[in-house]
């Protein structure tokens, strides 16, 4: 085989792999879109399910996912941000810091069902928060923490050392330098990571399965201590647990479309934030 042929073959294989990945994504999105779009309407988005979920909309599931996401953000963002600031700006390199980092890396590999069961024990039982929006949000918060911490640390890394030194040389304390001359430039990058973490969490089923998500609720939740319906769980029920699966298939596709749409919106928001941030840093 000539060198040229080997190179062409290699290039062909590489581009084939890339195209294949795109193809999978394309097929999935096309399938969901083409079969789900017919049921999407204002009524579908704004009304509760009726007639044993064979009719009506999915509003409670949208609301539930939204409320749980808020809890997730409120819990995971400050905690993740502060942990990242500590690790990147304050922690001395050494055994302890290495162990903490290793633990964080490993946490991101823990299966989500394990988080779910852990959430049941910690939040539902030990902390007596019950199966609720709060318990589920906190569980999803734990799940996103490794991503949040890593993303926030990466964002801090992109801020040049010269900004820190410049501020210190003017008589700023370390915390003042970080607060006024590092964080403002790191926050957009942090947001990008947080949004992507949230996009992942919002689509999770296992962690909310035992911590607060309900099969069906006749009322909307009144507080964060109530149970809730959520898009991914609703989708799971409609496609595997329902007594008339064939009948509710269009609704299942509609739910999937709403969920995928929500996650795409979050992802594009992250891209937009990052783009705006880069423009600003260029001056």
């Amino acid at each position, binding site marked *: 085989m000539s060198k040229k042929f080997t190179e062409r073959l290699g290039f062909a294989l590489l581009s084939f792999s890339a195209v294949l990945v795109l193809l999978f994504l394309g097929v999935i999105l096309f399938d969901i879109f083409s079969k789900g779009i017919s049921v999407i309407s204002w009524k579908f988005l704004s009304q509760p399910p009726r007639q044993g979920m064979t009719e009506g909309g999915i509003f409670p599931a949208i609301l539930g996912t939204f409320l749980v996401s808020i809890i997730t953000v409120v819990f995971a963002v400050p905690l993740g941000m502060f942990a990242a600031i500590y690790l990147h700006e304050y922690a*001395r*390199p050494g055994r302890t810091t290495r162990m903490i980092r290793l633990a964080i890396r490993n946490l991101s590999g823990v299966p989500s069902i394990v988080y779910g069961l852990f959430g049941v024990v910690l939040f539902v039982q030990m902390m007596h928060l019950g199966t609720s929006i709060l318990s589920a949000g906190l569980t999803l918060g734990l799940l996103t923490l490794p991503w949040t911490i890593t993303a926030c640390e990466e964002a801090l890394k992109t801020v*040049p050392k*010269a*900004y*820190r*030194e*410049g*501020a*210190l*040389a*003017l*008589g*700023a*304390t370390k915390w*003042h330098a970080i607060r*006024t*001359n590092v964080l403002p*430039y790191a926050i957009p990058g942090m947001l990008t990571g947080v949004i992507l973490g949230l996009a992942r969490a919002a689509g999770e089923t296992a962690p909310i399965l035992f911590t607060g998500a309900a099969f069906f609720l006749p009322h909307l939740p009144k507080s964060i201590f109530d149970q809730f319906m959520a898009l991914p769980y609703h989708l799971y029920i409609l496609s595997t647990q329902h007594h008339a699966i064939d009948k509710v298939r269009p609704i299942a596709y509609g739910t999937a479309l709403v969920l995928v749409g929500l996650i795409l919106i979050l992802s594009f928001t992250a891209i937009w934030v990052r783009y705006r941030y880069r423009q*600003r*840093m*260029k*001056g």
Partner: protein
Amino acid sequence: MEKPVFKMSARNLKFHYGSVLALKGISLDIRKNMVTALIGPSGCGKTTFLRCLNRMNDIVEGARVEGEILLDGLNIYAPEVDVVQVRKRVGMVFQKSNPFPKTIFENVAYGLKIDGEYSRSEIADRVEKSLKDSALWDEVSDRLHDSAMQISGGQQQRLCIARALSIKPEVILFDEPCSAIDPIATAKIEDLIQTLKKSYTVVIVTHNMQQAARVSDFTAFMMLGELIEFDATEKVFTNPASKLTEDYITGRFG
């Protein structure tokens, strides 16, 4: 001849970086209202020494300092000394100009806002004064609220000087301030340093021997962490006491 006033003095200063001894006991007096230049081949420790003068090396992981640095006779490494106060009195301009991604005005105002001790009008006055003192005012007075990232490299470096001047330090340290800018911008900064020494004590690290000869009153030649020669600039450049100094300034190594 009047008795020289020493603004800062190093007393047997040793700097450890991990297991490496980067400064092997430097003793040197820096005269008030004079320009002292630090020259020497790369890795000789001149920048390390400069960064000991305002304790910027404190933030380096694994760094340890022995000996003393006196500022007006008081050791800045004494345990009771607040490093923040040291850095307010001993300002620094870095090798690579490091304007913050803020407006020109906000860059100069940054140091003034740290303790919140100045009113808005005081800040505005001092920003203007600092920009005038750094010979930048005429070029930027009509765009103070534009991003500092948009002005030229030479202007950015003068902006950093203005920022250092804003909090009225007593000593200003320059770490190869002209290494990244063109000759015309360099000439402006050299002129500026001459003006600054009337009100400040200046220490400058430079790779450029002509620059050291042009701007400084005293020159320290360092090599491998040791101070080889320290004398009046004219003496060092015309009649060096050490063969090493002579070889270096005549370009036989470097």
